[in-house]
């Protein structure tokens, strides 16, 4: 039974089409990446998923049932734009949000304390939100989304504004939750961040789905034609006929080959040229490269001037 099933949903705001014919399925125990540049319709899709707005057409199913508000007690949502009551004490705030998600006060209090310990912010419990650092507020928001042990966790740009240590802590927590069988939906424009995390992805662009599937399956559709190498000495070998595109950052080259088979001849040619090679790695394309590869032919991409903040 899929956790989320969107069937051909569409949403138009006045004249702007926010989402057009989006279909996707999220299975339990997966980390699902909803990817796309800014303004491509990620947040609009999420809002329809949790009933904040109603799609103009198409259907939304949660936990195998048509959308109903009582199913929302099984969903945890971390919105992209974070917000907490500034003047309210952290613990009161967490209890209030927990109660709104259907917990009773005692349970909400106990879980809040446990989570604050787990997230290493116990000292913040008695403070008002406005006295806390941004990173701490973010963690509180994160806890608020998880307090009621939701089966579907929706995280809109969860790592923005977090330092690496805290981002790591969050990531670890999410991986633990996935092990418990929860489904996690990541929405982000930072495709590099989710590359290692996600089991399945959907990339949307201008409100339309351009690519979706399991991470491995998507990647295997594209040839392993990327090479990264580190070297000292002359870079004359970068003129090799097997190279489609190369960028040399003084001793560190990123190369796109014409075909995966050109890798070995290139290595041989480089060694023959006398360069000292310390690293030579054949890689699969990154999600970002795949994304640009996919959309570069579309009229929307050309209209956007070929520039996308991805």
């Amino acid at each position, binding site marked *: 039974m899929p956790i989320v099933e969107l069937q051909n949903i569409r949403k138009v705001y006045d004249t702007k089409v926010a989402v057009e014919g989006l279909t996707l399925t999220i299975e339990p125990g997966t980390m699902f990446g909803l990817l796309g540049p800014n303004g491509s319709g990620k947040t609009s899709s999420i809002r329809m998923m949790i009933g*904040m707005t109603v799609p103009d057409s198409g259907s939304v199913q949660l936990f195998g049932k048509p959308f109903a*508000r009582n199913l929302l007690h099984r969903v945890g949502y971390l919105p992209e734009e974070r*917000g907490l009551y500034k*003047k309210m004490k952290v613990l009161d705030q967490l209890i209030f*949000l927990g109660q709104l998600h259907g917990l009773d006060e005692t349970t909400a209090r106990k879980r809040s304390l446990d989570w604050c310990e787990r997230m290493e912010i116990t000292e913040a419990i008695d403070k008002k939100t406005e006295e806390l650092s941004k990173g701490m507020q973010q963690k509180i928001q994160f806890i608020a989304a998880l307090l009621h042990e939701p089966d579907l966790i929706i995280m809109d740009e969860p790592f923005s504004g977090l330092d690496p240590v805290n981002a790591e802590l969050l990531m670890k927590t999410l991986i633990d939750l996935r092990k418990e069988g929860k489904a996690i939906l990541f929405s982000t424009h930072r495709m590099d961040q989710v590359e290692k995390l996600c089991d399945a992805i959907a990339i949307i662009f201008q409100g339309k789905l351009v690519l979706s599937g399991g991470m491995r399956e998507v990647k295997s559709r594209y040839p392993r034609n990327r090479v990264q190498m580190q070297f000292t000495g002359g870079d004359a070998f970068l003129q090799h006929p097997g190279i489609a595109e190369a960028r040399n950052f003084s001793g560190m080259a990123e190369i796109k080959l014409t075909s995966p088979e050109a890798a070995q001849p290139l290595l041989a040619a480089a060694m023959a040229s006398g360069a000292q090679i310390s690293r030579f790695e054949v890689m699969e394309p990154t999600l970002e490269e795949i994304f640009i590869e996919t959309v570069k032919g579309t009229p929307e991409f050309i209209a956007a001037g070929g520039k996308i903040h991805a």
Partner: protein
Amino acid sequence: MHNIWLVARREYLERVRAKSFLIMTILIPLLMGGAIGGVAFMSRNMGSGQHIAVVTDNPQFASDIQTEMSDSKGTNKPTVDIYPLSNPTIFTTLNDQLAAKHATLDGYLIVTPAVTTGQRPTFQWVPKVESDVITRARVADAIRGALTREKLITSGMSTAQVDSLLAPIELNSKGKSDHAGAAVASAYGMFFLMYFVILFYGMNVARSIIEEKTSRIFEVLLATVKPTEMLAGKVIGVGAVGLSQVAIWITLALVAVKYMSASAGFDMHILPNAGQSALFILFFILGYLLYSSIAAALGAMTNSEQELQQMQIFLMLPLIFCSMIIFQVITNPDGTVAKWASFVPFTAPLIMYTRVIVGHPDALAVVASIVILILTISVVLWLASRIYRVGILMYGKKPNLPEILRWLKYS
């Protein structure tokens, strides 16, 4: 329902626990009491120490003016100096007195006898301050009284007869003289209470909506709470804060009045009877809910305090209108203006209550007015939540009127 309760409870507790609530609760009665006491003190002392001069050759007339100027109660008797017209330097002396910085003289009156006997003398008033209309009016009244007195005496009446004829009249309405004043006071009291509480707490509903918009907390809330629940919770929660405060004030006032009337030995009615007290509470709550709902709609339409400030006038206009007609309603509670205004929802709470206190509306009309109010509150809340729901999700864009109308159609 559970969500409404949770939202309302949070609003209530957060506000009541805030220091500002305590400060307002103590400070407002102090300031109001101070202001009322100050005005009462000043008006009691008004007229005392009035000092005028009369320049005339007729000493009897001057002393008549003196008698007329002193009012019936015999307190704050004004000083009246009398100078003969024949004194050639008198005008320079008086003008110097008027110009002097610390002079107490408020002005002088020159009485020039008529050329032909039996004609009125001519009067000239030279005030210290041109805008002192109160003294001027008192002098004019005194002259008229003095002239009458003079005429009556010359036509053969005795001084005692004239005194009794010209004595001030106490007009008592038969039987209920006490309650009339109290009724008017309670109508005015309701008006000021409502005006203040709506201005303060009604706007707080709008403000708390805007606060949630700017802090973006609404995104988290809307993931479980329906906009209507959120809005209703806010109106009820913030409303309860206002009602608590008013309840504290009224209790304090009642205790103070009881204590004061016990110690000072006078009888004070704030509300004439229990039925009218119940109506006071009912109309107050209905009016308050109505205005809070309008405030909620304003909050839903705007994105910042500044924008809200501009919209605030829409909340205050009906109240200002009430303040313009309330005197007419009190003096003529069953007249056309009062009748119409007690069925228009925005003026109904105040005007209908006033009519019940001072007039004689039939029971059906009162019930109709209450029903109209309840219906209007539901419609306004429904509209507000529609605007809120769509508006909040289109944050960042100020809607225009056609857009708001279109939003009402959105699901």
